[in-house]
């Protein structure tokens, strides 16, 4: 056997923390990297000093590299949960102007296109659910396929798949998987326009045929949570979020189809970049001009994959409602909101007094529209968009609301979650799945998962402190805290 020290490769595991000497501190929550060395715009990181110091130096490098891409507008942003991603940092936000040679990047959207979170209100009290907690955990685990090797009951032919890719959550509702009233509470009203299923390869379409209504694995989950604290009672009341009541949060994305689309376009964009005159400081930043054939094809494919994610979360919602109906017939599960945090959206923004059409990449970042935004449904418009922030297994999650200031500060964007603090290998070395499950059960949190190793890799301690992340988001003026959620049941792949 070969000797192995177990030490990470210095080449690919950065051992350098953020060097704050490279940053200009503009406030306690805003740090600026001045534009230099080929940067077209500055970099801006929103976080408190402790989070900044915990960030990997790779975040700095990636923010700088994104700032070098053609057509970028205002700044290359990183949210408080930023960590080392692929080309773009996870927690990165960047807007590009097609009229200024702006680009679209497969890496800037991510492999799991339109991965996102939705939260359902149940109206049930915590004590009602505690009384049937084990039955509910087992029923949800049985009903919602999670992890590799557990397929769903929905099997689509290519025509059905293409209809889904055009229709998104609206298609799911038309098939009987979901509720018409949900659509108003989903970004783009549940159906992303401009989707082009024909821009998606046959391989990618085949990969998805048996995966609709499945949760996936990694950090994806379905969680039953208690509203354990209200921060803003006025907004919470408007959202229908009440202390001591139960909500269900679903975190997943476009499954195999999104992954396949991401992989295929990443390689294609990397190979074609020189022909477009684009110098890539990092090949993972692979991108194409928005006005190029590849750029347009990726946009159409990405929008179709977005519909796949919206349909998938709608179907899982339907499966969840069936479980609740069997155990709590009186419960009516209504959708608070559905947000995607791996996206590129075409949006209008004010830039230096001009109204401009921009393509805003949010890689591990949540759109956070402030009060009065016309894209919000009328019932939410006075309060701002619900911003749903997932914690890690066994830790709190949060509901925030978009603030008026977030438009100018980050193209109306906020954080998306806790962000990993250590690698999967480190986590697996440190924890054992069975022990974690038992420890969490003692705290009243039931975990259902196919793999003890998967649980260990997702250990709460492997992630940053999500409470600190949302504090920073609020203090930076990106989104305000509305309520805190504490888990009772977590279903993981």
């Amino acid at each position, binding site marked *: *056997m*070969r000797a*192995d020290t*177990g030490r*990470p*490769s210095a*080449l*690919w*595991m*950065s051992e350098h923390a953020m060097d704050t000497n490279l940053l200009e501190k503009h406030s306690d929550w805003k740090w600026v990297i001045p534009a230099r060395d080929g940067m077209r715009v500055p970099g801006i990181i929103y976080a408190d000093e402790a989070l900044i110091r915990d960030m*990997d130096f*790779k975040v700095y490098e990636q923010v700088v590299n994104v700032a070098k891409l053609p057509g970028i507008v205002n700044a290359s942003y990183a949210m408080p949960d930023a*960590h*080392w*991603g*692929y*080309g773009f940092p*996870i927690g990165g936000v960047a807007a590009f102007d097609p009229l200024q040679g702006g680009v679209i990047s497969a*890496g800037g959207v991510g*492999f*799991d296109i339109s991965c996102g979170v939705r939260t359902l209100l149940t109206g049930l009290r915590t004590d009602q659910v505690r009384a049937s907690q084990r039955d509910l955990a087992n029923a949800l685990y049985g009903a919602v396929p999670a*992890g*590799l*090797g*557990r*397929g769903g009951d929905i099997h689509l032919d290519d025509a059905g798949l293409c209809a889904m890719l055009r229709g998104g959550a609206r298609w799911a509702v038309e098939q009987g998987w979901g509720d018409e009233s949900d659509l108003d509470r989903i970004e783009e009203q549940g159906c992303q326009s401009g989707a082009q299923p024909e821009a998606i390869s046959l*391989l990618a379409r*085949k*990969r998805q045929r048996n*995966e609709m209504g499945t949760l*996936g*694995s*990694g950090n994806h989950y379905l969680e039953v949570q208690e509203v354990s604290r209200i921060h803003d009672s006025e907004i919470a009341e408007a959202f229908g979020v009440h202390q001591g009541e139960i909500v269900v949060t679903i975190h997943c994305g476009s499954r*195999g189809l999104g*992954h*396949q689309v*991401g*992989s295929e376009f*990443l*390689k294609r964009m*990397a*190979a074609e970049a020189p022909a477009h005159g684009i110098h890539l400081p990092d*090949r*993972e930043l*692979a991108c194409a001009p928005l006005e190029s054939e590849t750029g347009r094809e990726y946009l159409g494919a990405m929008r179709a994959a977005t519909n796949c994610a919206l349909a998938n979360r709608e179907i899982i919602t339907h499966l969840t409602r069936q479980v609740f109906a069997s155990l709590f017939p009186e419960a009516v599960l209504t959708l608070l909101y559905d947000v995607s945090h791996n996206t590129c959206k075409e949006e209008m923004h004010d830039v230096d007094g001009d109204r401009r059409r921009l393509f805003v990449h949010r890689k591990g970042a949540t759109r956070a529209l402030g009060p009065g935004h016309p894209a919000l449904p009328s019932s939410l418009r006075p309060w701002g968009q619900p911003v749903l922030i997932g914690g890690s297994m066994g830790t709190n999650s949060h509901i925030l609301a978009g603030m008026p200031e977030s438009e100018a500060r980050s193209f109306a964007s906020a954080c998306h979650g806790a962000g*990993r603090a250590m*690698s*999967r*290998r*480190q986590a697996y070395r440190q924890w054992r799945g069975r022990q974690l499950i038992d420890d969490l059960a003692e705290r009243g949190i039931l975990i259902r998962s*196919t*793999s*003890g*190793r*998967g649980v260990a*890799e997702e250990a709460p301690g492997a992630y940053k402190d999500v409470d600190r992340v949302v504090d920073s988001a609020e203090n930076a003026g990106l989104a305000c805290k509305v309520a805190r959620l504490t888990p009772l049941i977590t279903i993981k*792949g």
Partner: protein
Amino acid sequence: MMGVLGIGSWSAVSATTYWRHFDHGSDIGIRGVGRTMAEAFEQAAMALTAVICDPGSVSAEEVVEVDSDNPDPELLFVDWIDAVVYQVVTRQMLFSRFRVEMSGDHLHGWLYGEAIDIGRHQPAVEVKGATLTGLEVRRIEGGHWQAQCVVDV
């Protein structure tokens, strides 16, 4: 072809033919080393299986064949790993033995494995795909070959 296998971070057939994992901030890296580029690709695919489960728990009962073409050896490696990922998720199979033949820009691969048995294999994660992060296909000391990249999970 296969020697000692083990769950965790690494395993070796010999001093010159082995696989190992390496760290990435949020995901995991796979690395294969062999006497030829093809052997390095085979070992990296073993590392991929070990991201998901203990390769020693997977019987090499069925064979699946894949083809890839790419003039860039590093992108050909990404194609190869993506092809294995594709077979895992679409066939719901795991693979514990790999054979690669290369000719110019072309790769032909044989994947030996069996259908996923959740109870026996306990898959920890579903790999989404290969990334270009940490991507290298190169000769290393002793004239051997190393192929590696980070995979998204």
